[in-house]
């Protein structure tokens, strides 16, 4: 099958969406230049023109509200933030309006707005350019949150969001843009709320999201050489969360490690641990472990960045810990 980078897959999804329906338009700063938000919009303005790719003023808050308003006029807007940090200006629009639009209209009016947001990690982006607040948005009713880890899912979740009826946040990690995957040519969908088992194993469940998925897979490779058999789950969307896939795996392995590229406290990792413990809390063979960023803003300096971002070795160590903690008795199949 055809291989595309994550950035190319997004670009293709956007191009197909613009083709499929005249109600789709994109808005964001500098989306109509060749640089095209890391290549994800490059070439689209030549095909669709400036009335479908709006280079928006630096007014993130209005951009979000305007997307909601345009949705009322039948449009399916996609708005784009070059950094997740920039969209902090738009939180009133999201929290008080977009996410509760359907609710306050008693289900009569939906707001199919897609918000793309890029997490800046890398090359000393520093504290105002590398946040990822996916935990916040997953706390919020009425909004869906996707964190595609592969080019395949980036395209399918983008299309599912644009042509779905709920407002959606798509969190894209800059470090994933150059990674490749098989990507079908047709306009296909990846559903919300369905995690995928990226690797099967019986010794421990390693749940990861977004940029931590490739890291988790590398950790699993390391552990395989030590005969530790890890099941790697890619959540794909953090709202809704696929509790069934999670619990199926943990009821088999009885051991859980969660890898989440975000601050540790009150994170998606905490939620994953909570939903698993709610169901299986008296049947775990080891205390669950989460591997996150420290509860600290992101430092610019390379040495501090290395200490800040966990890698495959830390994940592997965490899995060894949950496996070694109790006797290495293989749990019976659930």
């Amino acid at each position, binding site marked *: 099958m055809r291989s595309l980078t994550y950035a190319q897959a997004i670009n293709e999804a956007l191009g197909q969406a613009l083709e499929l329906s005249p109600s789709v*338009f994109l808005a964001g700063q500098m989306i109509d230049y060749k640089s095209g938000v890391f290549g994800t919009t490059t070439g689209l303005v030549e095909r669709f023109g400036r009335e479908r790719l709006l280079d928006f003023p630096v007014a993130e808050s209005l951009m979000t509200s305007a997307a909601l308003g345009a949705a009322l006029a039948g449009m399916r807007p996609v708005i784009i933030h070059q950094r997740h940090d920039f969209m902090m200006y738009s939180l009133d629009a999201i929290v008080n309006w977009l996410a509760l639009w359907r609710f306050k209209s008693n289900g009569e009016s939906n707001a199919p707005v897609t918000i793309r947001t890029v997490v800046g990690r890398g090359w000393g982006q520093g504290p105002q350019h590398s946040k990822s607040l996916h935990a916040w948005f997953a706390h919020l009713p009425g909004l869906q949150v996707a964190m595609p880890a592969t080019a395949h899912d980036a395209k399918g979740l983008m299309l599912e969001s644009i042509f779905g009826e709920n407002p959606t946040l798509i969190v894209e990690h800059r470090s994933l843009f150059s990674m490749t995957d098989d990507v079908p040519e047709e306009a296909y*969908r990846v559903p919300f709320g369905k995690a995928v088992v990226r690797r099967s194993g019986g010794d421990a469940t390693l749940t990861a999201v977004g940029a931590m998925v490739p890291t988790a897979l590398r950790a699993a*490779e390391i552990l395989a050489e030590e005969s530790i058999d890890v099941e790697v789950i890619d959540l794909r969307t953090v709202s809704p969360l696929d509790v069934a896939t999670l619990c199926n795996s943990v009821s088999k392995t009885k051991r859980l490690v969660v890898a989440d590229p975000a601050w540790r406290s009150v994170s998606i990792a905490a939620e994953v641990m909570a939903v698993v413990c709610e169901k299986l809390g008296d049947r775990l063979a080891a205390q669950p472990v989460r591997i996150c960023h420290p509860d600290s803003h992101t430092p610019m300096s390379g040495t501090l960045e290395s200490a800040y971002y966990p890698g495959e070795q830390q994940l592997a160590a965490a899995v060894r810990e949950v496996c070694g903690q109790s006797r290495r008795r293989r749990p019976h199949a659930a």
Partner: protein
Amino acid sequence: MTQLTHAAIRAAGRYTGLSLRGADPDLVKRLHRFMLRLRICEQALMDEYHPADEMRCPIHFCIGQEAAPAALHEELEAEDYLFSHHRSHGYYLAKRAPLGALVAELYGKETGANGGRAGSQDLSSPVCRMYGGAILTGAVAISVGAALGEQLRGGRQVSVTGFGEAATEEGIFWEAVNFAALRKLPLVFVCENNLYSMYSPQLKRQPDDGISRRVAAFGVPTETIFGNDVVAVHQSVAGAVARARQGEGPTFIETYTYRWNGHVGPESDDWLEYRSEDELGFWKDNCPLALLEERMLESGWLTAQSKEQIVRESSEEIAAAIQFAKDSPFPTSPDWQGMNYAAETPAADALLQASSSSQFDQNQTFSMPGPY
């Protein structure tokens, strides 16, 4: 008056400018009827609020501010968009949304405009394209998007947004003005300057009484008018809506008016001593209904009898609406998931293929992004 301001209006004494010369009698009668009906409905709700204590939600009444909704009621088409702030009832009725559903909403009933989910301050009627909300200036920003959507799809509909003078203190207001001017959107801003943000007077919050001047500096045409002259308000609104519909861009209308009732709820808040009896007296003396009725009586377009009939009909209408609300059932067994998320995906079903799954190559290396 060179520049219209609240101070200048007070200084000029009782308003004498309302003129029916050249006006269409039917139009004037409709404006009058709308205002009188709105006044009677609001008064009935205020009277009912406390003794019964069944309308369990904050309500911001609009007695004294009937003119702008009346003008909008006249000019907006069913498919036009009208956005409102917390003081929503006039705007709701301006879009011809049903009175019974309004009152039932206040009572938190399943038959309410929003099934009792929203209440007065978050009221909307999507089918009538009226959308309110209590967070200041939020709906103004959304109204820009409806105008943008219409412009992008080449529609003929106009977006109108009504709000108070305090809404211009939120930064997003100026983002809205900048963008509306930049794109010449089919948008009408209606700013009801009633001098107060709750209890705080405008000059405690803004350097001067010159909102329109500030908006004009962005290149949006503005009109400042005495907001209790419904004929003048209607004329401004009609012109602005027509220009927007013809693709001539946005207009900002500032109507100087005054709220008689307390900021929220039916009871007076004058014990807070934020406004003088004199001031309230001045504005009651400049009642938008009374100013109009004086002229209508003179010209014979209104008689004691014809007024009495409107009063009777409106009183009966609101009484029936209150009864409807009281008789309606409360919502039960909430489906929280369905209330917050749509389950169906008709567009995606029609346009997209089923998902295949991929074989992500887990051995490829992670490349840390470069400089920017």
